[in-house]
């Protein structure tokens, strides 16, 4: 009895440490361990259940191992051959049956949740639909019901089901917002995926690409801004406002002919590159240069980040398909002007 209490006493701090690690670790906007929506919460519950079962297994195995290693080490002068035990049916049945039982305990909620998260809300009228198209190395978000197509920053209303349709424009990527829920691959046409996520509170969450997609795979992040309904509606309205172009007409013309062949602002431009509408309101440039409005340590003014990006896109995100503006005939001064224009192109919402 005494011995058992000793063992528990020894284990308690370990378990407490584990609980601490599980509850407190990581950034609220990034960590799997700090869920900010029901899907991530449900998945974390499953993870916790699995970890608990596995800790039980490990305690048993490590306990037996420690006992055996201490008790049965060869002592000096011990030369009598130990008994050659063939096996023990009772024991063998026990250690077949108990793991089977443990697996069952994990299997039941697993199956429940597989089907729960497998539900497709694409045709659910209450859900906000977002078509996600991944590109090397940026994300396109199209809201078919709102006529809005943005990039890199996904804006969603809090508390609503967001039904995602996931596909890729080139290689496979994987859409992952850890604090809102697990990931799903963006496949090519013909195997399009669907997934539903909900954000419980207004905040900005970090999203990442989780499938190797080329050199800048690690830099293919995005942001998810969860906002209240009214703000969301304002955002949609602001986004659909007519395009703002650079004031200097020569620069505007150069911007139009060069940049807008791929990018779009407002109702103008193409869709081969990320939409630039409201660049000045975004938290990042190219998803890894942090702008000061994000409030992150080490972030820089949006304009500085834009200058850095426009001066040498390959240095920031190797392998991306954007041509170097200098090769398109932009001078340093013009790059500065474009950066200034974009940094001040803000959406009011």
């Amino acid at each position, binding site marked *: 009895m005494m011995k058992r209490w000793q063992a528990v006493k020894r284990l308690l701090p370990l378990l407490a440490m584990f609980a601490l690690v599980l509850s407190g670790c990581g950034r609220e906007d990034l960590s799997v361990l700090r869920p900010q929506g029901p899907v991530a919460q449900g998945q974390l519950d499953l993870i916790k259940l699995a970890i608990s079962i596995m800790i039980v297994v490990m305690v048993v195995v490590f306990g037996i191992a420690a006992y055996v290693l201490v008790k049965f080490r060869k002592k000096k002068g011990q030369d009598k051959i130990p008994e050659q035990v063939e096996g023990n049916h009772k024991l063998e049945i026990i250690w077949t049956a108990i793991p089977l039982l443990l697996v069952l305990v994990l299997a039941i909620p697993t199956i429940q949740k597989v089907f729960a998260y497998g539900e497709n809300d694409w045709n659910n009228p209450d859900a906000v639909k977002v078509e996600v198209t991944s590109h090397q190395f940026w994300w396109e978000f199209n809201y078919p019901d709102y006529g809005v197509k943005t990039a890199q920053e996904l804006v969603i209303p809090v508390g609503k089901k967001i039904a995602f349709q996931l596909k890729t424009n080139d290689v496979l990527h994987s859409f992952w917002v850890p604090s809102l829920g697990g990931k799903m691959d963006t496949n090519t046409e013909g195997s399009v995926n669907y997934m539903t996520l909900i954000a419980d509170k207004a905040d900005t969450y970090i999203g*990442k690409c989780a499938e190797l997609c080329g050199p800048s795979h690690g830099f293919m992040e995005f942001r998810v801004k969860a906002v209240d309904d009214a703000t969301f509606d304002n955002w949609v309205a602001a986004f659909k406002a007519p395009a703002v172009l650079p004031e200097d007409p020569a620069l505007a013309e150069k911007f139009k002919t060069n940049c807008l062949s791929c990018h779009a602002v407002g109702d103008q431009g193409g869709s081969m590159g990320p939409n630039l509408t409201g660049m000045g309101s975004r938290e990042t440039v190219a998803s890894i240069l942090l702008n000061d409005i994000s409030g992150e340590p080490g972030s820089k003014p949006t304009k500085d980040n834009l200058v850095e990006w426009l001066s040498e896109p390959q240095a920031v995100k190797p392998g991306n398909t954007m041509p170097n503006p200098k090769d398109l005939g932009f001078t340093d001064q013009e790059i500065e002007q474009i950066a200034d224009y974009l940094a001040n192109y803000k959406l009011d919402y």
Partner: protein
Amino acid sequence: MAHAHAHSHSVKRYSGLMDWLTTVDHKKIGILYLIAGGLFFGIGGIEAILIRLQLIKPMNDLVSAQVFNELITMHGTTMIFLGVMPVIFALMNAVVPLQIGARDVAFPFLNSLGFWTFLFGGLLLNLSWIMGGAPDAGWTSYTPLSTTEYSSTHGVDFYTIGLQIAGLGTLIGGINFLATIITMRAPGMSFMRMPMFTWTSFITSAMILFAFPAITVGLVLLSFDRLLGANFFDVAAGGSPVLWQHIFWIFGHPEVYILILPAFGIISEVIPTFSRKRLFGYSSMVFATILIAFLGFMVWAHHMFTTGLGPVANALFAIATMLIAVPTGIKIFNWLFTMWGGQIRFTSANLFAIGFVPTFVMGGVTGVMLASAPADFQFHDTYFVVAHFHYVIVGGLVFGLFSGLHYWWPKMFGRMLNEPLGKWTFWTFAIGFHLTFFVQHFLGLLGMQRRIVSYLPNQNFDTLNFISTIGAILMGVGVLLFLANVVVTARKPSGVANDPWEDGRTLEWSIPSPPPEYNFKQIPLVRGLDAFWKEKMAGNKEMTPSEPLGPIHMPSPSILPFVMSLGLFIAGLGFMFSTEEFSNSFMSLIFNKYIVMIVGLVITFAAMIARSVFDDHGYHIETEELEGEGKA
């Protein structure tokens, strides 16, 4: 087999390098596998260290993003196909024929061919580093990233062609060991008297036979897409990238068990020897091994939970995967209860075996966690997965291989590895291992995805990544200590006892270390499980022979396996560069007109024809010679 006319042929015997190029002796081939596997393991290890150094701090720029992707691709591919597989084959070659009381493997010539195709395939793959860039699409080479559109160097061609050639060698090895274990067992050695390492080698070989052809087809399809303009994975022409994932993992998951089962076998030999007890629950161990192999073919889609196969498939594959925990658990408890009541000696071999048990349990339990598909949506492609499979493959397999190498080294080379150095190897490697990979579980849960060249600061990744890199360096030190041990040991005189651990249980410990080329002067009679132990307990110093002393027939050495493999190597290079645009018109002629490829194939086929037309009668070691050796 004694052909009436066999001994009338005088056989050519080589020495020096030619001896190694032409040998068909399974013991020498084992050593060749060990050297080649060790070399590739070293290369893969350097790649690993470079990866970890790049990740030591946020936004590091030690290597470029492109080189980083090449490093991760080659690290995975090299370690799995060229590092650990050959070391497994090294031990299988060195030990299995001895354990079953055989003079040789069923196909000595094919054994050599298997080695040389593996080696040339591996060399071809690694040539990519100096010939325009290594493959960069991950060891899984998912399409479309691995198609010419997104990976325009020849890297992925080196991957597809190199692995096809190396895979051919593995397949040949698998068939050879299956046939060897089925037909070459000594009298009295029934299947249920076979040592566990032989059992696991047998099951692994069977899995190789049924898994490797699938990846061969996958690689052929990918190389056709890349080099012949086929459309298997080209969506625009109706192809399907998800098809590649299925083919890859139908092979890929069994491959994991192909790797780990022999480690199970090694642990099942080492623990009983150093506990002086027979393996607890032998028959349930055999049963569990077979069950794991069977389930191993049923679970491939658990690598594809996030591909979007739908809830029904995900649920089925989740359950099937979880079930593997049951036979694996049986094994763990059997090992623990083998030690229970024994007299445990902490030799370096046994330290690795004992270290294996808890480490592998940790890898196993995270495996069950990953099997829970909805939870896997979070784990998938994060450092949690990286931690999991390194616990299984390094903490499991590599610990097992180190254990086996320390254990069988005296049998293979006639010299004991230095024990203090061996213990240092264990502690540095084991501590380094846990430092490297334990923290990676948390990195994954904190939101760090795998295969990223760098990461921004302030995501709580910095400290854990730093610790992980320090651990990796420590593992590197452990490997260097092992190498030092090998060098130190090689300078010692040869000639240890038959049974240097004194508690050997199986047949390999009943013959000299290293064994003579014919292994057993007289094939032993097996009277039970742990045949040698049984004789020792009955008071006998040697095995009872099952046959009178007589001339022993041996196969002739041959250079043909080397030539065949060389031909495949040349043909592979030729095929790979057949679509290349050369500025030099001569190069363009010989490559674009498939001349190099045809020359390579002609070399291979000519060697095959030579092998078929000229009968190998082998030679005999005469009775007088055997008796002379016995006295010396």
